[in-house]
Each structure stands twice: as structure tokens, then as C-alpha cells.
């Protein structure tokens, strides 16, 4: 019962729907009556450049599910890889990508989802980080308003490893970007951030699940988003601290702005704690722009539209500033500014 197997068997009944607790706000079964026919193969050479091409040492393209990709990093090696997940047309496709980073390897993954058409695409990623490996994953999801995308990443950390992720999305007809992390503790470090900027009737679902299995692990999560028109954002964050995983320090924040009367934000920040010597917290706010700040800016002579854009950009900026890779940070900042109309 998964999206990947539904695409493989073309059985729509296998798609998760709102009766499945984890998919209650991202109903695929109710949306897709029939799984589309497999997508045609794409000529990779004919594609335009991806958003991160110029920043990468290595380029990997997965087009309409073709080209099973593997990224390997040798012990102590440092590299930047651009991973492009391209969807074209109205078919369905699934792909798998595996990433192995060996001891003390350092990898930056610049992942982009580039879609055009009414496709159904699924990508399964398996990332495994050895001791002291450092990985930063930046995901820019630019799907089509008619497309349906599901990206499911599973991250395995070894003690001492460090994994930082920032997801940025503009949504799709339905879009789910899921990250599941097995956190071994042992001073491994995890950061899971997200930004969504949704307009029209777009939907985006950022779902994370982190399991702290042993002592001395830290997790930091910050997700912020803006929805307008009739868009709908979903945030589901789960932190599990297993019995004995003492001295875990986990913090989760989700903050959303709703800029229209018909947009919707659904959030479920969840803590599941089985150990007592832990420090876990989550905060969640949903609301409109601060009227006082807006008033202040307008009083200084700023037109209302500019003031709104400025405040919204500052709101989102806090997450973007946490990105380590400078070039990628600039790319996504420009992407956000364009969407916010600043």
C-alpha cells in the first residue's frame, strides 16, 4: 500500500487517502480515480538548465522516472551534486535514488523538482550517512499546478553524523514531501527546515518523522509558510524519543501566515516520548500578518503592497538564512522573492 506500488500496479485503490491517518489532509485516493499510463521516456539533452546546475560538481537527472540514480561519497571526500527530478506530460512514473556518504564525507545535494503537465510522480530516496559524515540537502520543488508529486526520503544517520535539510516548495495539485529520519543519538545532529509559498489552488504537504533511538541526539526543526487564494498547506511533524534515548534535545516550530479568507493550513506537530531525561518542545502558530508592523511600515511611507511583501519576506527569511551553502541560499532567496512579489 504505497504510492510507488500504486504506480507500478496502476491500481488506484492502493493510493493512500484521508482514511489513512498520515494522509488525512493529502487525499490521493479521492483525487485520482485512475492511475495514468506510464510516462514516456524523455530526451534529457533537450531539457532546459536546472536551477542549481551552475553550483554543482556533478549533475544527475531523473527524467520521468528514468535513470535510477546513485550518489556515492568516498571517505573524507567533499562534493556538491545537483539532483534534478524532471516530470513531463500526463503519465505516471516512480524513481529511486540512493545516497551513500562514507566516513567523514561531505555532501551537498541540490535537489530540484521540475514539472510540466498533469503527471503523477513518485520519488523514493534512501540516504545513509556514516560516522562523521556531513550532508546538506536543499530541495526546491517547482511542480506544475496540475501535477501530483510524492517525494519520500528515508535518512539513516550514524553517530556523529550531521544532516541538514531545507525544503522549499510552491506546491502542486497535490504534493507531499516526506522525510523520515532514524536518529541514532550519539551526538548526531539533525536540522529539518521547510518553507512553503502557496497560491491559487495549490497544495503542499511537508511531513517529517524523526525517531531518536539512543542518547545524546539533537533535532532542530523550523518550518514557515505563506498561503493565499485557495491554497492549502499541510505540516505534519513527528518526533519520537525511544525508551532510553536520554539527553535528547528536540525542538520543532511551525509558523504559517494565511493571506486570504479561503486558504487553509492544517498542522499536526506531534511528540511521542518514552524517556524522561529529555528536553522536547514544539510551537505552532497560524495567523495573519501583524497589523501593528504593517501599520508601522505604512506610516513610514511604504505602499501597503510593498510593506506586506517586505514583512512576508522577513518572515520566511529566517528559514532561508539557516541554509549553509551560500550559492544555493541565493538561488532560493531569489525564488522566494519572485513568488512574494517583492
Amino acid at each position: 500500500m504505497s504510492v510507488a506500488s500504486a504506480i507500478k500496479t496502476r491500481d488506484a485503490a492502493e493510493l493512500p487517502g484521508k482514511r489513512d491517518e498520515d494522509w488525512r489532509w493529502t487525499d490521493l485516493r479521492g483525487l485520482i480515480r485512475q492511475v495514468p499510463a506510464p510516462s514516456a521516456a524523455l530526451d534529457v539533452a533537450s531539457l532546459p538548465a536546472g536551477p542549481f546546475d551552475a553550483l554543482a560538481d556533478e549533475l544527475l537527472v531523473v527524467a520521468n522516472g528514468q535513470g535510477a540514480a546513485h550518489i556515492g561519497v568516498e571517505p573524507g571526500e567533499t562534493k556538491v551534486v545537483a539532483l534534478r527530478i524532471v516530470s513531463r506530460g500526463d503519465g505516471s512514473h516512480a524513481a529511486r535514488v540512493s545516497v551513500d556518504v562514507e566516513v567523514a564525507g561531505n555532501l551537498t545535494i541540490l535537489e530540484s523538482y521540475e514539472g510540466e503537465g498533469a503527471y503523477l510522480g513518485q520519488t523514493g530516496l534512501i540516504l545513509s550517512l556514516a560516522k562523521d559524515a556531513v550532508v546538506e540537502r536543499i530541495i526546491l520543488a517547482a511542480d506544475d499546478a496540475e501535477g501530483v508529486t510524492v517525494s519520500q526520503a528515508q535518512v539513516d544517520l550514524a553517530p556523529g553524523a550531521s544532516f541538514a535539510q531545507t525544503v522549499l516548495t510552491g506546491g502542486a495539485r497535490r504534493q507531499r514531501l516526506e522525510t523520515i529520519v532514524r536518529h541514532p543519538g550519539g551526538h548526531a545532529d539533525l536540522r529539518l527546515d521547510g518553507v512553503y509559498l502557496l497560491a491559487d489552488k495549490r497544495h503542499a504537504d511537508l511531513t517529517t518523522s524523526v525517531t531518536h533511538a539512543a542518547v545524546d541526539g539533537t533535532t532542530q526543526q523550523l518550518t514557515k509558510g505563506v498561503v493565499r487564494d485557495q491554497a492549502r498547506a499541510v505540516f505534519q511533524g513527528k518526533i519520537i524519543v525511544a525508551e532510553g534515548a536520554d539527553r535528547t534535545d528536540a525542538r520543532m516550530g511551525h509558523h504559517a501566515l494565511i493571506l486570504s479568507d479561503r486558504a487553509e493550513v492544517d498542522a499536526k506537530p506531534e511528540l511521542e516520548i518514552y524517556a524522561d531525561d529529555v528536553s522536547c518542545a514544539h510551537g505552532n502558530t497560524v495567523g495573519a500578518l501583524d497589523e501593528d508592523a504593517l501599520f508601522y511600515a505604512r506610516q513610514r511611507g511604504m505602499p501597503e503592497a510593498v510593506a506586506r511583501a517586505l514583512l512576508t519576506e522577513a518572515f520566511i527569511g529566517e528559514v532561508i538564512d539557516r541554509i549553509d551553502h551560500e550559492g544555493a541560499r541565493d538561488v532560493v532567496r531569489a525564488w522566494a522573492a519572485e513568488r512574494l512579489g517583492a
Partner: protein
Amino acid sequence: MAAVKQTVEHVASLEKYKHGFVSDIEQDFAPKGLNADIVRFISAKKNEPEWMLAWRLDAFERWLAMDEPDWAKVNFPRIDYQDSYYYAAPKEKVGPKSLDEVDPDLLEVYKKLGIPLREQEVLAGVEGAPRYAVDAVFDSVSVVTTFKKELAQVGVIFCSMSEAIREHPELVKQYLGSVVPVSDNYFACLNAAVFSDGSFVYVPPGVRCPMELSTYFRINAENSGQFERTLIIADKGSYVSYLEGCTAPMRDENQLHAAVVELVTMDDAEIKYSTVQNWYPGDPETGKGGIYNFVTKRADCRGDRSKVSWTQVETGSSITWKYPSCILRGNESSGEFYSIAITNGRQQADTGTKMIHLGANTRSRIISKGISAGRSSNTYRGLVSAHPKAKGARNFTQCDSLLIGKHCAAHTVPYIEARNGQSKFEHEATTTRLSEDQLFYAMQRGLSQEEAVQLLVNGFVKDVLQELPMEFAVEAQKLVAISLEGSVG
């Protein structure tokens, strides 16, 4: 410090579960099992009119078609609904005219319960005794209802549900099942079919109920499920405060308790509903024998500017599964939920609230304090939602969990659904253990470890305790200490 000292003495004197006794009063049982005939039997026993029986039978039909839910974070052996009694009433005690006529055994039970009703005082004519109206549900039938006269003077109706069905059928017909529909959920549906008794309150327009109303529930008959049904209606501009306190005797077999509480507030009305629940939590090592507490509590703030406040202290039951909720339908209506849930031993609690904002400028506030100790599990599960029309809705939620010990669990599962751009929702949750520094500080000042824990825990839950009516707050503070007995060290 006096309260702490008192608590410590109390704990010291406590060798076993305080309310763990079984009183032998003759019982009038319906045969074991559940079928349409049992439903008819209950209805006939209570001399109910035809429409009520039809309502029950309809509910029973629907219940048969439903599946038992399993989404809560609680584990328990499947309940055999055919292996339970659905009706038990004390014999020979139909309609006593005063407390003097009541079986002395029954009064003895109240005494053992330590019901702080000061009922006896009041009945003995003691000057200046505080005014409470008590509708004691002794197992299933309301045995004693006092103060009726004084309440009647201001027009407040406070009686047992069976009496209300007979005396005020028009009100019951209008409101029963209007907040919690018959087939709302599995347990509410079961309740609708077999509910035995409960309390009924109607406060007429503009009346501020002159006293706190209170019901003491007590599960007494071995192996008998208790299915109360409570309905409180606060008409325009009225106010009522209702206390519900619960204790149960010790026994070996699990007991199912599936109550339904419905509150309705009209324009400018307010209901304050406070609960202290201290049912038998089961054996601390095995969890055997405790009460299953599956309750549906819901308030419908129908009128503009109406208000409902739920306060609960949940320390008992082996399994607690309840979500007192507010449907904020009226414009500018508000809902509050203050909760302390304490689990120890093998207890499991999955509790929280739902705040459903439908009207404009509605407000809600949720303060939840969960404490887990021993091998227990404590879950906060809550929903805050705003409808597109709920412009200007405001919610503030704070859920704090305290863990005491290595083997307990605390979970927080909030759901937030915001559907308009003019509402503001804030939620924060923390999970921590008892601070070693604070413990050390308190012990350094000469407190024993047990005293220090009690002091810190009482501080942790203070935000909620102070929402309780005075008499309940004192009792609740003691309960908090007793519940955590032996959890540290």
C-alpha cells in the same frame, strides 16, 4: 506548606486505594448481556414513555452496525459486551423523601467516600453551611436529590435524567442527543441505548444558579457498566457551575464506563463544568482491574457570547479516553479547557479537547498538564479548527508534560485546521522531567524527596488547579499527591 504537610500525612496513612471497598446493598440486576430485550428491560424499569424506548432501540440498532474505534494510544483486551450487566439499581430505595429514610449503609458509603458535601451538616440544619445541590448517582439510579426546593424557587430544574424524562419530556425531547448525536461514536451510541441515569439541569433565562450543582458518581455493583447521561441547558443570560466527582470501589474485573455529557448554552449564558475523576486505576504492577473510562463530553455554545469552561482532574481509571469539546457556534462565544491528567502504575490516558470555531470572533483557550509516572502512558490529543466563517477566531493552547521515571511515556498530538485568514492560533508544548536542580533545592531546605516532588508537581499544575471551585481544588491537590505516591526514588 500546610497543604503539603496534610498531603504527606494523608499519603502516609494510605495503605491501599482509599476508595477500594465494596458495599453490600441489595442490587436489582438486569440479566447479563446486551440485546434489544435488555434495552426494553431498562426502559421499563424506569417507567419511560414510549418515545424514549423507541429512541433507545434505534440507538441500539445503530450500535450493532458500528465498529469499536482503535485509534487512541491505549491498549486493553477487547471488551466482551455480552459479559456485563447493563442495569443495577439499589433495591427498596425508590424515592426516599429525605436522607433519614435512606438506607444507613448508603450513607455509610458516602461517609467512606469522604464526600465533602457537608451534606449532613446542611441536612442537620447547621447554620451557615455552604449551599450545594447534590444529585448522587449511586450506581445507576439517583437516590438522593436535595435542595430541589430552593432551586425550584428560582426556576432551576435539577433532577435525575429519568425524572426529567417523566416530568419535562418537552425539554428532554428537544435537547437530548442534539449535541452528541446518537450515532456520534461507538461508545456514545452504546450509551444512548442503555443509559441508566444521570443528571438533568435546566437554568431558565437570566437566572444565575444560586449554588454549585454537584453529582457524585460511584460505580458500585460488581461487573456493571455505568452509563450516565447528563444534559445541562443554560438558557439566555444564565449561569451554572456543575461539579462532578468520581470514586469507585476496588475490584478485579474491568468495568466499562461510557458516559455522555451534553451542554447547551444560549445567548450570554455560561456553564462551568468541573470534574475530579479518581476511579480505581487497576493494580499498579499489572494494570488489572481498573476502570475503563470512555466518555463523550461536548458543549454546544449555540448562543452569541455564550461560554463553556471545562476543568478536569483525571487521576484514576486504568484507561481514560475522553475529549471534552466545545462547538463555538455563536458569535463571540468562548470555550475553555483546563486539564490535569496524571497517570501512574500501568494507567493509560488519551485525553484532550476539541475546539471547533464556527462563529465570528470566537475564542478558545486550552491548558493541559500531563504527568506520567511508573509505567504509564499519557497522551494529549486535541483539535482546534476554524471554519471559513469564523473570522477573528482566537486560540491559545499550552500542553506541558512532566515525566517522572524511566519507563513512562508522554505524547502530544495536536491537530490544527485553520480555514480563514483572520484567525489566530497559537500552540506550544513542552515535555520535560522533574528538574533535578529544583528537587535538590527543595530537599536542601529540609523537605523529604516525596514532599519535594509534591511541591514541584503542585506548582506544575497550579494553572489548572486555580480554575477549580475552591472545595474541589483542595481535594484535587491531595489527589495529585496521592496519585504520584511512590513514583520517585
